[in-house]
């Protein structure tokens, strides 16, 4: 199998790498591995001391058991009784503090992605969550950078509260009271599925939409460790000018982060990185190809002698190929040589050198040396008479050859340039097409995400009363469950031990919820205590019970009818139980 060679593979983002980083799991694996290794380790068998001690201990145990079996039968009976007693007294499993009565009836939690390094406002139906920048830290207390997910859910009526399983009892100085709620919410934050926290000294403002504009409520925080509601402060309802619809707000919500979509990332990489690199590469390749084309030098035109003093130089002109074409060259002394005098021709110079002159190819520097004397002259190569004619003929031919080669070279260069342009244009066209594709994909993904969020909002909207009458401002410094509530003492003037019947069949419910419509209170009957419903004869009630996977209801009329007859047998009717049917539950409860 050949080695796979990838070129320009997109790198893995730091986020994705961090997502796979899990030290706790590594530690767990390490511990499991150590345990497994220890179990497999049989070297202790080789330890003679342990072997002898084990044999002796085994012998003692065998003797003791035999003795007891033969001579002490009565004690055996006691052991059996002890076992029975132990089983009876086994404590009941501790119930979960927040326990939803039904696993099927779930409320969807809205999830919002926000950039933790910017001030952000999340609009959830008619509520707003205002998050200042740099609010979050991880469990090590280090600042969170980048996108985080905020989970948010609201509970506004009895159905929401029943389904949530959140206990609504408040211990007010030793007296148990039931909460009337003006709205409750649960808020949590994560990054890459890991819990995040609100930094000490920072707060988040939650402006929760409330269906109750009264000012009798307090704010509470649910302490799930101490299993109790903690009073925060007196709550003040802030009236809102008019009800806004969830759909109007849907457009103002935090724009979902779609840039991280893998399809879009690949396209972006192609547009911004790969294609520009290809365009650049084409340019480099063709520039090099053009550079590699043969280079031709224009032949030098022979110059006619002007009659100025000149030198005849013997030697080869290997260093100056442009002069090689000419025979019997004369080097005329230029007028610019102020140091020249006629005596120069009388001297037998011991050395002379010809170098490149100030005008390359046109003039030369003649260096004359005699003992310590050195003279430099700028000279011009010229010809005269028949030599000139011959040179002019040669020049004319060379010029013709040069011109035809140059034309051919220029044609090749133009061809290469045209090829380069064509390739670059093709890449640019491809880039444009990909840009359009990117836009379309982005719009499509955005539309899908918005649709999905709109559906989510619509579903939440269905579960919420339209009549938002006020907002309630919570300033929170911890994630968790917050409530705007008013505690009420449970009525004690009337009570009934209920029996629930459906089609003449008695039911044995797991959970019983009493909804007091007059005081807008819902409470669950304690499972461990005797189930007694306390009620006020002037109030309106309904009862919701959960048995296995079914929900049954004794509605307002049915409850009132039973009570008016001083009865305790409540005829209940089932309502269908499925994930969507919180709406049906609301309808059945007449909320």
């Amino acid at each position, binding site marked *: *199998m*050949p*080695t*796979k*060679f*990838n*070129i*320009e*593979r997109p790198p*893995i983002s*730091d986020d994705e*790498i*961090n997502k*796979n*980083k899990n*030290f706790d*799991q*590594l*530690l767990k*694996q*390490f*511990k499991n*591995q150590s345990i497994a290794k220890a179990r497999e380790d049989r070297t202790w068998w080789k330890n003679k001391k342990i072997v002898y001690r084990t044999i002796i201990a085994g012998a003692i145990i065998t003797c003791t058991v035999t003795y007891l079996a033969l001579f002490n039968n009565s004690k055996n009976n006691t052991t059996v009784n002890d076992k029975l007693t132990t089983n009876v007294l086994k404590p009941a499993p501790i119930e979960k503090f927040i326990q939803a009565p039904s696993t099927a009836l779930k409320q969807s939690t809205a999830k919002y992605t926000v950039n933790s390094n910017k001030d952000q406002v999340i609009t959830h139906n008619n509520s707003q969550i205002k998050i200042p920048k740099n609010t979050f830290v991880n469990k090590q207390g280090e600042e969170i950078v980048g996108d985080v997910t905020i989970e948010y859910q609201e509970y506004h009526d009895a159905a929401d509260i029943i389904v949530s399983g959140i206990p609504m009892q408040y211990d007010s100085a030793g007296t148990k009271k039931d909460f009337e709620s003006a709205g409750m919410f649960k808020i949590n934050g994560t990054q890459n599925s890991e819990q995040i926290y609100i930094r000490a000294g920072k707060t988040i403002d939650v402006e929760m939409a409330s269906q109750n504009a009264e000012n009798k409520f307090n704010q509470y925080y649910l302490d799930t460790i101490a299993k109790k509601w903690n009073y925060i402060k007196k709550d003040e309802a802030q009236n809102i000018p008019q009800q806004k619809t969830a759909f109007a707000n849907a457009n103002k919500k935090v724009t979902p982060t779609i840039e991280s979509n893998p399809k879009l990332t690949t396209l972006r990489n192609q547009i911004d990185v790969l294609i520009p*690199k*290809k365009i650049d*590469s*084409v340019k*480099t*390749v063709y520039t*090099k*190809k053009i550079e*590699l084309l043969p280079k031709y030098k224009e032949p030098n035109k022979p110059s006619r002698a002007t009659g100025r003093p000149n030198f005849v130089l013997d030697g080869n002109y290997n260093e100056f190929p442009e002069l090689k074409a000419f025979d019997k060259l004369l080097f005329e002394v230029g007028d610019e040589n102020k140091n020249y005098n006629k005596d120069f021709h009388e001297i037998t110079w011991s050395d002379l050198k010809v170098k490149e002159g100030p005008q390359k190819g046109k003039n030369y520097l003649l260096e004359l040396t005699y003992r310590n004397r050195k003279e430099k002259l700028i000279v011009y190569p010229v010809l005269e008479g028949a030599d000139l004619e011959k040179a002019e003929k040669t020049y004319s031919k060379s010029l013709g050859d040069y011109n035809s080669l140059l034309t051919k070279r220029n044609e090749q260069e133009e061809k290469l340039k045209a090829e380069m342009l064509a390739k670059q244009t093709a890449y640019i066209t491809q880039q444009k097409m990909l840009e359009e594709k990117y836009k379309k994909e982005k719009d499509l993904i955005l539309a899908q995400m918005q649709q999905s969020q709109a559906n989510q909002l619509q579903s939440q909207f269905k579960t919420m009363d339209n009549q938002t009458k006020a907002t309630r401002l919570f300033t929170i410094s911890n994630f968790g469950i917050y409530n705007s509530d008013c505690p009420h003492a449970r009525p004690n003037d009337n009570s009934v031990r209920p029996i629930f019947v459906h089609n003449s069949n008695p039911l044995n419910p797991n959970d019983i919820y009493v909804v007091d419509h007059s005081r807008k209170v819902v409470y669950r009957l304690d499972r461990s205590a005797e189930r007694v419903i306390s009620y006020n004869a002037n109030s309106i009630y309904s009862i919701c019970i959960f048995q296995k996977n079914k929900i049954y209801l004794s509605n307002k009329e049915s409850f009132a009818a039973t009570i008016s007859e001083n009865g305790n047998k409540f005829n209940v009717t089932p309502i269908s139980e499925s994930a969507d049917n919180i709406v049906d539950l609301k309808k059945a409860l007449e909320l």
Partner: protein
Amino acid sequence: MTINSHYHHTDAQLNDELVIIEAAKLNPEKFAPLYNKYYKQIFNYLYQRMDCKETAFDVTGQVFLKALTNLTNYQFKGVPFASWLYRIAHNEMMQLFRNLKDKRAVNADISDLKFICEEQSEPFFEEYLPALKQIISELDEEDLQLVEMRYFEKRPFKEIAEILNTTEGNAKVKMHRIIEKLKVKIKKIKL
């Protein structure tokens, strides 16, 4: 070529790292800073040589598990802890390829290949790519490692030497020989 220098440690950093290592030998939970510090480096090292992202993540996990398991055998040799992790990573990866009867992958950017050509004073054309890929793929594992670390990962020779458990001079000599071999082959490429 810009050489990455994230690997370099001062004496103080090496000492700090050694303190963590000694603590982690007694209590595995103290291994967390080393895990967090080197996770990305080791993953990138593996992913550079592998084709599958998920497998690279799995092997990265295995490398750290192996490091933690054998930490008591680790002896400080005056070089960053990373060099030991890189050697474990290389062994784990090669073992995986042997088990799967698979071949490793090579990942490079055009600019890296261009640089290799330019260093041999040869022009680079995109048309060279298939031939260059072929030449590099044909290198034996030891030579490929060197080319990869030097040209694709842009590591300094000091770091390469520490990872390959050799001397800096030796790494340079080997690299020179590989370059000579490459030079001959690259010169033969025709457009």
